[in-house]
């Protein structure tokens, strides 16, 4: 089976690789690019730990072929912090203790990042629905909701000059 050459931007860096068509995006990120932030959980698109951003949309990378990303821009959790400063969603999960074991956190962060662009000023109910594609087995979700609320507030603060 012939490999396909793909060009893909990951966290702003252009990558050109030949991939087997059956390679899933999650495996491409973890094994070809050594970006192990996105995790492998249920592998059937339920749990959300593999969530990344593709062309401005949250996608579960365990159910997406790398070859389908030819020409796309992908953002993973490794690309969230900027010059050593945590993104507001990362700061929110840290400050509000939005994790215990941390396994679901990369997916939670990437979904929260996109959700807050879709809905910058969400109600608690909207957060619960917006984050409903991500499972956490430790926290009971309460602190995750608080973390997203923290980030929403922080992202709305005027940026210091």
């Amino acid at each position, binding site marked *: *089976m*012939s490999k*396909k050459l793909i060009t893909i931007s990951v966290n702003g860096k252009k990558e050109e690789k030949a991939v*087997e*068509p*059956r*390679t*899933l995006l999650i*495996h491409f990120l973890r094994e070809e690019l050594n970006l192990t932030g996105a995790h492998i959980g249920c*592998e*059937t*698109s*339920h749990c*959300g730990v593999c*969530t990344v951003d593709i062309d401005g*949309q*949250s*996608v*579960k990378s365990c*159910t*997406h*072929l790398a*070859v*389908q990303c030819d020409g796309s821009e992908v953002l993973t959790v490794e690309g969230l912090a900027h010059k050593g400063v945590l993104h507001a969603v990362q700061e929110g999960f840290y400050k509000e203790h939005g994790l215990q074991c941390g396994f679901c956190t990369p997916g939670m962060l990437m*979904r929260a990042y996109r*959700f807050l662009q879709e809905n910058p000023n969400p109600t608690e109910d909207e957060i619960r*629905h*917006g*984050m*409903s*594609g991500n499972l956490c087995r430790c926290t009971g979700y309460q602190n995750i909701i608080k973390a997203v609320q923290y980030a929403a507030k922080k992202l709305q603060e005027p940026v210091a000059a």
Partner: protein
Amino acid sequence: MIPPRFEYHAPKTVGEAVALLGQLGSEAKLLAGGHSLLPMMKLRFAQPEHLIDINRIPELKGIREEGGTVVIGAMTVENDLIRSPILQAKVPLLCEAAKLIADPQVRNRGTIGGDIAHGDPGNDHPALSIAIDASFVLEGPNGRRTVAAKGFFLGTYMTQLEENEVMCEIRVPAFAQGTGYAYEKLKRKTGDWATAGCAVVIRKDGDQVSHVRIALTNVAPTALHAEAAEAALLNKPFNAANVQDAVAAAIAICDPAEDLRGDIEYKTAMAGEMVKRALNKAWSLCA
């Protein structure tokens, strides 16, 4: 889990996709959103030698109006149904129902056409399509044909879509002013398929029911069109006794499979409850 090996094709037009289907025959599968097919491939329930990815065909996406008909490209994703101003105004049932399908990430990939063409009785769009009197435009080597949703679903994973055809459009008559609608779906958790679901579209003339469609999700090998239940209401007053007759008629055609969502008795009872809730909610929206 990694899918079995396959050759990948990414046509740019429906014509190219149809030609590839003709050339590759039954060894090829169309890849739409992939959220049913890829998991099935990982589990080796499906092992196509060729995948024809139809995500890069622009003509298959988008929602437009043609006179009194809303035309939905088969590769339009669930989140675009929810956000569509045309659907919100003309077929709001699809916007409300799509919110109950899967989860936000999956709704970015899952398509209305894939949901219909897959023929899974657990999918929601088959019953919705029947309830809204949709028809499907299918393109094959001999051109296009249009088939009604009613009668399209033949059995589990079996539809009238031929192996050499691509589903292109879902065509829906715009709701008349004052149309009531509801989709009631009992599920164990976000992202699960329905334990039982019911789609209703209803119109009134005074206190009488002047139009009604009732269709059921995941309580038989295919989506069910509950025609006897409709007959229990049509041209009659909408009251508790007639609703109960409709519920009984809907229950009578249920043939669910026992699984972790419940046994046959439970699922059948829940189907009846979903019919009742959907009818009452839809009627309350009727003007």
